[in-house]
């Protein structure tokens, strides 16, 4: 099986088939990440699509390393762009204990426990948990993608995972 860097090199030379294979391999991870960041399936898929279009345009800048981490970094930037457009008055505050991003509340009951538990985290914890736990980035990769200090990312992941376990263990009473 061809590796991601091999496919990326082929795609840089113009091979749409190679890029389609990369999209096929990584779409679930990127869509999952975008959906969890936005809290919306459609908005998440839009961001994921924009991520791959940007990746196609900027494939020449991929300098090796984990391809999925490179994609997730693009996805994070696309998410921030959308966030700035929709809520320009709110600056991202990674220390915030509130959830400032307007998240859709419809279909709450249909969501899986995991998604509901994720909603309960602070935004910074959710970002770190989504990147490190759900998308599989290492703490260092997540720190590089977000620009946050490594210790901050580790701390948010640790607390986020703890909170997530707590919420999953304690089912809500309707």
């Amino acid at each position, binding site marked *: 099986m061809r590796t991601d860097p091999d496919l990326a090199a082929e795609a840089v030379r113009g091979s749409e088939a190679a*890029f*389609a294979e990369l*999209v*096929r391999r990584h*779409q679930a991870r990127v869509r999952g990440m975008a959906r969890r960041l936005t809290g919306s399936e459609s908005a998440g898929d839009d961001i994921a*699509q924009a991520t791959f*279009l940007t990746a196609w345009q900027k494939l020449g800048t991929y300098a090796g390393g984990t391809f999925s981490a490179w994609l997730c970094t693009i996805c994070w930037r696309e998410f921030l762009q959308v966030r700035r457009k929709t809520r320009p008055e709110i600056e991202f505050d990674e220390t915030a204990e509130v959830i400032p991003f307007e998240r859709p509340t419809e279909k709450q009951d249909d969501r899986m426990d*995991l*998604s509901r538990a994720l909603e309960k985290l602070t935004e910074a914890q959710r970002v770190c948990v989504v990147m*490190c736990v759900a998308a599989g980035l290492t703490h260092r990769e997540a720190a590089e993608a977000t620009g946050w200090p490594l210790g901050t990312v580790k701390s948010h992941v640790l607390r986020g995972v703890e909170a997530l376990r707590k919420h999953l263990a304690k089912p809500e009473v309707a």
Partner: protein
Amino acid sequence: MHEEDTYQDLANLFAAEDRALEAKPFVDGVMGGIRRKALIRRLVIAGGGAAGAVIAAFQLPSLFGDWFTVDDTIVSAVASAQQQVGVLASVNPVWLLAAAVAGLSFAAVATLERA
């Protein structure tokens, strides 16, 4: 033990959710978007090239007229086209501005887009 190993169970839950996402429509959507952009880019380059060729053709008589004889029919055709463009511009010069803006936009798109 890696720190990441302490939440492998949660990672597996998220991965199971992601695996349920249907890939084909999404992949088709992404690749369709890429092909559309590539088509637009090709059209813009072709259009820009054609426009450049027309502008270059307008300049041919004055550029080479002094060195060798350009066929009379070509010279008269170009002169007539130049006259018509001049008339059109004097009637409504806004179209020239619109054409310039469109040309610049095409150039910007063609430059930024990847094939």
